[in-house]
C-alpha cells in the first residue's frame, strides 16, 4: 500500500504544465487533488515515473461566473465550488448535487477537474456536466480546444483527452430562469458511489432525464411531455428498454427498478422546486 517512487514537477503556469506534459507524455500523470490517483498509486495500479502537480498553476484555480454559465478551473476543489454555489445562491441543481460527492474531507482535496478527467460512470459531476450539456477546455503545448460533454466522455474512465493535454476548465451552463430541477441518488452508504443517480430538468414541456451509474457514461434522454402522467410512462419505458450494466454491486434488474422508482420520485416532487 505504498506508492512506487516517482519525481514531482510543480509548474507555476499553464504554459510550463503543458510543456512538461508534452515532454514526458505517457511517463507522467497529472495530479491535482489526488483523491482517486493517490489510492491508485498506493495500490500500484498506476506507477508513473513522474507526477505533474498542477496545484500551483494559478490559471486553473479560478471560478468565473457569466450570465449563462459558470467556468470552473480544473484545480478548483469540490468543496470550494460547493461553498461558492451556496454563498452566491447560484446554480441550484449543481449546488444540490455537490454534497453527494464522497464526504467533505474528500471534497476538500478532490478537484472538479479531477472528477471530470477521471470520468467515473457514477460520478455526480460527470452526470451534471452531461445533463447541462456543458463542455471542457483542454490545452496542449500546441493548442487549446473545446469539447462538449457528450463527446468528452467516451467510456467508463475514458475521455477524449489526449496524452499531452491538460484539462483547463469545465463549463457548466446555468438553468433557464423558469426551469425546474431535481436530483436523487441511491448508494449503499452515504458518500459511496451511486448505484443509480438521476438528474431531472424540466423546461415547460421539455423534460430531460439523466442517469448515472447505469452504463459506461451518463445517459441523457430529452422528451416533450404534456403531463406528469406522460412523464411517468416515459420513465417506465426507459427503465424497461435502455441498456443497463450489471456488476457485483447491483444486478441489471435492480438498476432498472431504481431508474424507475427514483425517476417517479423526482417527477412527483418537480413542482416544488424552481431553478
Amino acid at each position, binding site marked *: *500500500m*505504498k*506508492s*512506487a*517512487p*516517482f*519525481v*514531482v514537477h510543480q509548474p507555476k503556469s499553464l504554459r510550463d504544465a503543458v510543456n512538461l506534459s508534452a515532454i514526458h507524455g505517457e511517463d507522467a500523470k497529472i495530479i491535482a487533488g*489526488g*483523491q482517486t490517483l*493517490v*489510492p491508485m*498509486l*498506493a*495500490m500500484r495500479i498506476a506507477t508513473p*515515473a513522474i*507526477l505533474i*502537480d498542477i*496545484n500551483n498553476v494559478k490559471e486553473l484555480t479560478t471560478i468565473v461566473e457569466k450570465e449563462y454559465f459558470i467556468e470552473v478551473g480544473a484545480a478548483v476543489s469540490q*468543496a470550494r465550488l460547493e461553498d461558492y454555489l451556496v454563498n452566491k445562491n447560484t446554480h441550484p441543481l449543481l449546488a444540490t448535487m455537490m454534497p453527494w460527492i*464522497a*464526504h*467533505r*474531507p*474528500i471534497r*476538500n*482535496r478532490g478537484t472538479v477537474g479531477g472528477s471530470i478527467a477521471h470520468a467515473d460512470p457514477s460520478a455526480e459531476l460527470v452526470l451534471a456536466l452531461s445533463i447541462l450539456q456543458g463542455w471542457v477546455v483542454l490545452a496542449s503545448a500546441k493548442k487549446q480546444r473545446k469539447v462538449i460533454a457528450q463527446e468528452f466522455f467516451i467510456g467508463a474512465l475514458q475521455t477524449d483527452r489526449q496524452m499531452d493535454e491538460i484539462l483547463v476548465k469545465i463549463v457548466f451552463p446555468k438553468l433557464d430562469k423558469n426551469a425546474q430541477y431535481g436530483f436523487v441518488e441511491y448508494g449503499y*452508504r*452515504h*458518500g459511496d458511489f451511486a448505484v443509480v443517480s438521476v438528474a431531472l430538468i424540466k423546461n415547460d414541456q421539455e423534460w430531460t432525464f439523466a442517469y448515472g451509474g447505469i452504463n459506461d457514461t451518463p445517459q441523457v434522454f430529452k422528451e416533450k411531455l404534456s403531463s406528469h402522467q406522460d412523464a411517468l410512462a416515459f420513465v417506465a419505458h426507459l427503465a424497461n428498454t435502455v441498456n443497463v450494466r450489471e456488476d457485483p454491486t447491483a444486478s441489471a434488474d435492480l438498476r432498472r427498478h431504481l431508474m424507475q422508482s427514483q425517476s417517479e420520485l423526482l417527477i412527483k416532487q418537480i413542482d416544488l422546486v424552481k431553478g
Partner: protein
Amino acid sequence: MSQLPFSEKISVEVNVNGEKRSADCEYRTTLGDFLRHGLGLTGTHYGCEHGVCGACTIHVDGEPVRSCLMFAYQANGKEIQTVEGLSSKEELSDLQAAFRKHHALQCGFCTPGFLMTSSKFLDDNPSPTEQQVREAISGNICRCTGYKGIVEAILEVANQRTAKGGRVC
C-alpha cells in the same frame, strides 16, 4: 543495492499543532506517514490507506482531509492540526472528555479520525441535529463499538457549548 535514481529525498516543513517542524522524506511519502514516521506524531492512525475509513483524518489549513490521500510535499508550508493538538498535555478537550464519558470508543483505533472530523463539524455547526451528526461522521468507520456513543458525545458537546455561549476547550 544501488538506490533508485528517483527515490530522492526532499525536505518538508509544516506548522503542526502550532510548532514549526521539518523532516526529510520522499515525494511518494504520504502526509500521514510523514507525521508518524518523520515527525513521530503517531496519534494519526492509518486504517485502509485509500481514503475510505477516515481514521487518518487531520486538519490542513483548518479543513479536514485524509492524510493518506495527500503527499507530504503537498503540505509544505501549511498549517496542520492532528489529534495531539486538540488539547493541552494536562487536560482532555471537552470533545475528548465526552467521548470517554459516552464510551464512544472501544479499541480506539478510529478515534483520532472521529475527533478531527467532529471537532471541525462542531465549529461549523454549533447546534446540529442527530441526523446532521450522523451524516457528518458518515465518512468515518468504527468497527467495534458502533456509532451510538459517538453521536451522543458529539451532541452533548454541542449542547454544553451552546449553554456556555461558545466553544470551550
